[in-house]
C-alpha cells in the first residue's frame, strides 16, 4: 500500500483529486446555505455537462481552448519565464485567423490552413517581443507581457470597430464567416458516418481542432522533453546560471520559448473564432488566457498532463455555468465557488509541503532518540 502511494504518478493524480475534491466540498457547503434546493443545484453542477448533448459539446470545445492556452503557459513556465502574454497572443491569433477566414478568396482546403498558419505566425512574433526584451534588455516579462496584452486588445478592437465590422451592423461584430473559413466538424461528412455526423453538427461545434490539439500536445511534449531545444528550455527553467555555464545560448533559447508559447496562444484564438464563434466578436478572450495559468499549474507544466487538467477544469467551469442556468444560485455565488476551486487547485504546494513537514518532524525525532542514547547510558555509570 505504501509503495502504491509513493509512486509519483499515483501521487500526482491523488493530489489533483484532493485539490478538486476539497474545493467541491467547500462549494457544496456554501450551496447548502444559499440554495433552497442545494442537492439539485449541486447535481446540476456535477453532472451538468452530461445531461444534454450540446452541453457535452460545450465542455469539449472549452477544453480545447483550455488545452491550447494551458500549453502556451506551461511551455513558458517550464522555462521559469512567467509570461502572462497568452491573452494578447490569443486575441491577435483570433484577429488574424478571422481576417483570413473572412477575406481571402481561397477554397476551404487552402483558406483554413492559411488562416491557422497566419495565426501561428502572429503568435510567434507577439511572443518573440517580450522574449527579446527580457533576453537583451532584462525587462521583466510579467510587466512586458501584460502591457503587450493591452496593446493587442486595443489593436483588435480598433480594427474590428473601424474596418471589419459591416457598416450596417448594430454592434461590434464581424460578418459570419463563410463555410470556407469555418473549421469543419471532426467527423468527416461521408455516408458511412452520416447519422453521427448530423448528431454532432446539430448539437456541437467540435471541429477538426480536436485533432490539431492532440497533435499540439504531442508536439509540445516532444519539444519540451525530447529535443535539444527542450533540454535547453528545461535547464534554463531549473537553473539558468548552470545553463549559461554549460554553454547554452540562454538568450536565444529564452526568446524562442516565448515565441513558441505565443504560437499556442494564437492557435487558441483561431479555435475561438473559426471553430466556435464563426465571427470576430468583441471581448473574445474574456478571461480564457488566464485560465491557462491554472490549467498549466495544475498540470505541473507538463504538456502531457495539460489536456487532462483542461478537461477537468473545463468540466467544472461548464458545470458551474449549467448550475447558474438551472438553479437558484446567483452568478456571484458561482463565481465564488469557481474562485475557490482555483484557489485550491493552485495551492499546489499544500500537499508536498505538509508531507515534507511530516518527514522533517520524523527525522528530528529519530535524531533526538539517537542523541539521547549516550546520555541514558551515562546515567547508569
Amino acid at each position, binding site marked *: 500500500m505504501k509503495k502504491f502511494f509513493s509512486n509519483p504518478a499515483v501521487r500526482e493524480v491523488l493530489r489533483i483529486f484532493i485539490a478538486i475534491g476539497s474545493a467541491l466540498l467547500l462549494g457544496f457547503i456554501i450551496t447548502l446555505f444559499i440554495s433552497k434546493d442545494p442537492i439539485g443545484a449541486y447535481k446540476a453542477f456535477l453532472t451538468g455537462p452530461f445531461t444534454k448533448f450540446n452541453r457535452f459539446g460545450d465542455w469539449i470545445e472549452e477544453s480545447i481552448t483550455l488545452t491550447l492556452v494551458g500549453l502556451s503557459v506551461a511551455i513558458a513556465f517550464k522555462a521559469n519565464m512567467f509570461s502572462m502574454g497568452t491573452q494578447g497572443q490569443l486575441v491577435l491569433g483570433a484577429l488574424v485567423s478571422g481576417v483570413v477566414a473572412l477575406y481571402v478568396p481561397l477554397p476551404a482546403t487552402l483558406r483554413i490552413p492559411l488562416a491557422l498558419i497566419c495565426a501561428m505566425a502572429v503568435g510567434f512574433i507577439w511572443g518573440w517581443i517580450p522574449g527579446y526584451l527580457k533576453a537583451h534588455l532584462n525587462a521583466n516579462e510579467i510587466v512586458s507581457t501584460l502591457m503587450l496584452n493591452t496593446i493587442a486588445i486595443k489593436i483588435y478592437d480598433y480594427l474590428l470597430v473601424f474596418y471589419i465590422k459591416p457598416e450596417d451592423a448594430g454592434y461590434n461584430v464581424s460578418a459570419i464567416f463563410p463555410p470556407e473559413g469555418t473549421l469543419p466538424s471532426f467527423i468527416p461528412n461521408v455516408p458511412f458516418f452520416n447519422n453521427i455526423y448530423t448528431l454532432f453538427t446539430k448539437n456541437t461545434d467540435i471541429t477538426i481542432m480536436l485533432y490539431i490539439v492532440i497533435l499540439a500536445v504531442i508536439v509540445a511534449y516532444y519539444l519540451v522533453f525530447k529535443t535539444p531545444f527542450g533540454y535547453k528550455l*528545461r535547464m534554463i527553467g*531549473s537553473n539558468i546560471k*548552470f545553463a549559461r*555555464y554549460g554553454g547554452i545560448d540562454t538568450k536565444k533559447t529564452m526568446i524562442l520559448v516565448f515565441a513558441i508559447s505565443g504560437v499556442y496562444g494564437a492557435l487558441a484564438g483561431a479555435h475561438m473564432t473559426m471553430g466556435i464563434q464563426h465571427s470576430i466578436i468583441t471581448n473574445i478572450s474574456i478571461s480564457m488566457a488566464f485560465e491557462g495559468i491554472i490549467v498549466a499549474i495544475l498540470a505541473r507544466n507538463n504538456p502531457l498532463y495539460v489536456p487532462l487538467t483542461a478537461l477537468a477544469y473545463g468540466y467544472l467551469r461548464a458545470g458551474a455555468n449549467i448550475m447558474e442556468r438551472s438553479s437558484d444560485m446567483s452568478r456571484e455565488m458561482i463565481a465564488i465557488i469557481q474562485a475557490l476551486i482555483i484557489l485550491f487547485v493552485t495551492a499546489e504546494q499544500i500537499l508536498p509541503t505538509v508531507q515534507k513537514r511530516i518527514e522533517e518532524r520524523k527525522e528530528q525525532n529519530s535524531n533526538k532518540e539517537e542523541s539521547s542514547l549516550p546520555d541514558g547510558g551515562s546515567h547508569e555509570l
Partner: protein
Amino acid sequence: MASLVEMRNIVKIYSNGVVANNGVDFQIEKGEIHAIVGENGAGKTTLMKILYGSEQPTSGEILINGESVVFKSPLDAMKKGVGMVHQNFMQVPSFTAAENVVLGHEPSKGIGLDKKKAIEATKELSEQYGLYVEPTAITESINVGMRQRIEILKILYLGVEILIFDEPTAVLTPQETKDLFKAVRVLIEKGKTIVFITHKLREVTEISDRVTVMRNGKIMGTLKTADATREGLARMMVGREVFLDIHKKPVKRGQKVMSVKDLSFVSETGHTMLRDLSFNLYASEILGVAGVEGNGQTELVEVLTGLREPASGSAVVDEKIVTGKTPREVRQAGVAHIPEDRLSNGLSVSASIDDNLIVDRFFKPPFKKGLVIDQQVVENNGKELIKEFGILTPSGELPVSSLSGGNMQKVVVAREFSSNPKILIAAQPTRGIDVGATEFIRDQLVKKRTDGTAVLLISADLSEVMSLSDRIITMFEGEITGVFPDASKVGEEELGCYMLGVKRQTAEEMEALL
C-alpha cells in the same frame, strides 16, 4: 580577575561531518579590540556564531563575567550583552534608517510604531557613538557605509556590551573603512568591547589590541598586536601540513597551450578586480593559484571561461582568442571548468544526474540523433560516468539534489573530465566535501595532468595548492605578486607573505617564470 568572555574547549561539528571548531579556548578582556584572523574556513565565523548564539556548540562552555551561560538563540546572547554586526546586512530595504534601527524592538504607540521615538532614539545613539546616520533616509537609497552604521546602531539600541564585527571592511571603500575605524575607537572609549573578524593583516595591526590566529578550527595563538609582525601572523595563518599521500609522477611539462596577456577586469560596481594579469599554461602541468579568497581568483576564472568579459587583455588558446567569447565557444576550444560554486553554476540540482552530465554535449552526436536527444545514449553516458567516477546513486534518473555534497561534486568532475579537455580550470574543486571525495578528486586532477592536460588550480586551501601544483602563482588584490617555478621548493610561510601582499616580486623577476 575573570575575563569578560571565556570560551572553554569549544567543539563544533556540523551535521555533514565538517569539524569547524576543534577544542577552542578563547578569552576576551573588557574594553579591548580583539582581532581574529585566519583563512576562509579556519573556523573564525563559526566560533563567533557560537558566542552570538546563532550556532550551538557540540561541546564546550561559555562564561561571561565568570558565569556559565547557554545561548539558544541570538536573543539570549543579546540579553547577556553580545551582539553581532553581520557582513550581510539584516535590514528591510524599504524602511527608514530609524525604523531599521528599532526593528524587532520598536517603541510602540497603541498598535503602531512610534516613529518620533524611533527617530529620537536613533539620533541619540548616533550622536553618542559618533555613528552618523540620517534617521529618515530610506535604507535602500543610502550607501553601504551608512547601512553598516545602521547595523551597529541596531545592536547598540539593544544595549550590547560586546560587538562582534564579521569582516566589516569587506564591503567598504577605503574612506568608509577609515570612518568605521574611527567609530570603533569611539565605541571603545564608551566602554564597549570589540571582536573583529578579518583576514586582512593590515587592519589587524592598525586597529586591534590583541590578535588571535585560527587555523583548521584551532587557535594557533593569541598575542598582543604590538608584539606581532605581519610576517609572523601570515606564517601562523597558513602554515599547514602537506599531504603525503599524493602520488605525483614527475612529468616533463609540455607545450604552451594557453597564454594570458595583460588581462584586466572591472566589476559592475567599478572595482578593478584584475590588473594586467599575464601567465601561460603548459600541457602536463598543474599551475596553482594561491591567494586569500576575494583577491580576484573568482573573476579570473569567470573571464577565462567566458562567463564574463575582460576590460582589456586576452587569453589565447591555439592562436584563437577565447576571452569575450561565449561559454560554448570557450568549451569548444578545449577548456573545461569546475566552477567554485557547484550549486549555483555547476549543477542544476532539480534536474536528473543524467541531464546534468550532458550539458556540454547534448547538441552533438551521438547524443543528438535527428531532431531529438537519444535517451538511450544519455542513459548510457550517465551509467558509465557514475561507474567510472564512483558517484553513489542507485540511478542516473534521480535528481542531483538526492546526492551528498561530495557526490554532487563528482557529477561536475565526471562531466568536465570526460570532455577530454586540453585545459582544465578547477576552482575550489574540493571545497566543502568529505575526505573520500576530496582524495578521489585530487587523484583525478593529478592523473589528468600526467595524461597531458594543462590544469589551472584555484583553491583557498593552501595545502591543496602546494601538494598538487607543479608551479604556483600568488594573487593579491587582483595582481600576481609572485611566481614559484617549483612548487615543492617553496614554503608555506613564504607563500603566505606573497598571498597577503607583504612581499612582492618585481615584474622582471617574474617575467621569465610566467
